[in-house]
């Protein structure tokens, strides 16, 4: 990752924290000041989807031409993606407690998010239970593609078909036509980009750690044989 992108990421996230907490927001009943959670909750899901998609891209590339590097990338982006997923669930549950009155509601989007997290937890269980490295890479790549395709109808299509407390489904307007006013856009779009860049950065660090571990294992092997 280029150094200037890292600087952009840090600047954007710091800006989101300062501006997100200080700039004015529309006064709305029930939501009140919790509307500021939009800058933290929604970018998590955008970031998670983007990171999972990058992981999927690397899994497809792995199947076309298997190299260890691509498997590391697929696994690292999935790891960061699941962290974003947990953060999204956490921020969402806090927000739900204040806006809807309970930490967990039977909302279709919540169920979709929980199932998506289960899918990727299963992905890591699968990675953990195969010993042969090449076998592990291939099986997890296949499962990654299969699970991603099963996840899309869950989080993008099904919630839109049924009524939901979230904006953008079941007759609720999407948040573009909602009152995401121009001042909030000034913070929201940088937040989406900033959080995604931070996630990407963490993933690249993880990829480097995996590559170094691999090298250490090789050196160890060479020393002992």
């Amino acid at each position, binding site marked *: 990752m280029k150094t200037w992108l890292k600087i952009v990421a840090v600047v954007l996230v710091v800006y989101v924290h300062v501006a997100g907490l200080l700039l004015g927001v529309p006064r709305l009943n029930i939501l009140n000041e919790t509307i500021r959670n939009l800058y933290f909750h929604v970018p998590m899901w955008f970031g998670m989807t983007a990171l999972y998609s990058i992981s999927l891209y690397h899994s497809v590339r792995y199947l076309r031409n298997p190299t260890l590097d691509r498997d590391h990338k697929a696994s690292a982006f999935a790891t960061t993606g699941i962290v974003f997923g947990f953060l999204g669930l956490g921020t969402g549950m806090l927000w739900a407690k204040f806006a809807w009155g309970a930490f967990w509601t039977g909302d279709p989007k919540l169920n979709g998010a929980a199932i998506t997290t289960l899918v990727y937890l*299963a992905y890591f269980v699968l990675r953990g*239970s195969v010993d042969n490295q090449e076998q592990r890479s291939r*099986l997890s*790549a296949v499962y990654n*593609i299969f*699970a991603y395709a099963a996840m899309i*109808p*869950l989080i993008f299509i099904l919630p839109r078909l049924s009524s939901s407390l979230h904006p953008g489904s079941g007759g609720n307007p999407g948040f573009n036509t909602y009152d995401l006013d121009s001042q909030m856009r000034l913070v929201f779009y940088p937040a989406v980009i900033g959080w995604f860049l931070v996630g990407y950065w963490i993933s690249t660090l993880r990829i480097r750690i995996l590559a170094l571990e691999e090298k250490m294992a090789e050196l160890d092997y060479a020393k002992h044989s």
Partner: protein
Amino acid sequence: MLLSLIRKEFTLELRRRSVVSGIGLYLFAIIFICYLTFSLRRGSINEATWSALFWLAILFSVINSVAKSFIGEKRGLSIYYYTVASAQDVILSKIIYNTLLCLVLSVVGFILFSLFISNPVQDTPLFLLTLLLTSIGFSASLSLISAIAAKANNSNVLMAVLSFPVLIAVLLMAIRATKNIVDGLERSTSYDELTNLLAINCILTALAYILFPYIWRS
């Protein structure tokens, strides 16, 4: 090749009758436990409970029966298939065979449920169509996952862990359609769910078809 593979599955299944009867007994045991529990208090089973029990019974027996499609196979056998058939033929034959197996299981389950517990279904043809569509979805995803799990350690645990999240989409649609049918709503209200189910089936089958050769090669 495809036809002879399917025929082989049937011959094998009929030859090992203990496996089929084992799964049948498993399904019967689940339903009988439900019956015993709910017969203690008459009329305590409403439509929602019926649908939950029905889909739980079907889900567990289907996972158990389809799991063995690759997990039980000996190592040498897959090498033999590799030399005589293409991967696509193998997965398609498994999917078709497992679809029939799931369909038989669901229909038998339905009959047992109406015999022992009750039959709140108001539109039987539509319900059978739902059963057929879910059977296709179950068999497409479970066949692939069984192939994945067979290559890993502790495959039986892995089978349940890996299949649950993938099956949820199919199950959700099936449960919604069941609710409409049980409530006696118009047929047209369930068309949305059924077309969604069909679309999900297409995605799952196509993916299983594309991805299986990669698992098989090892």
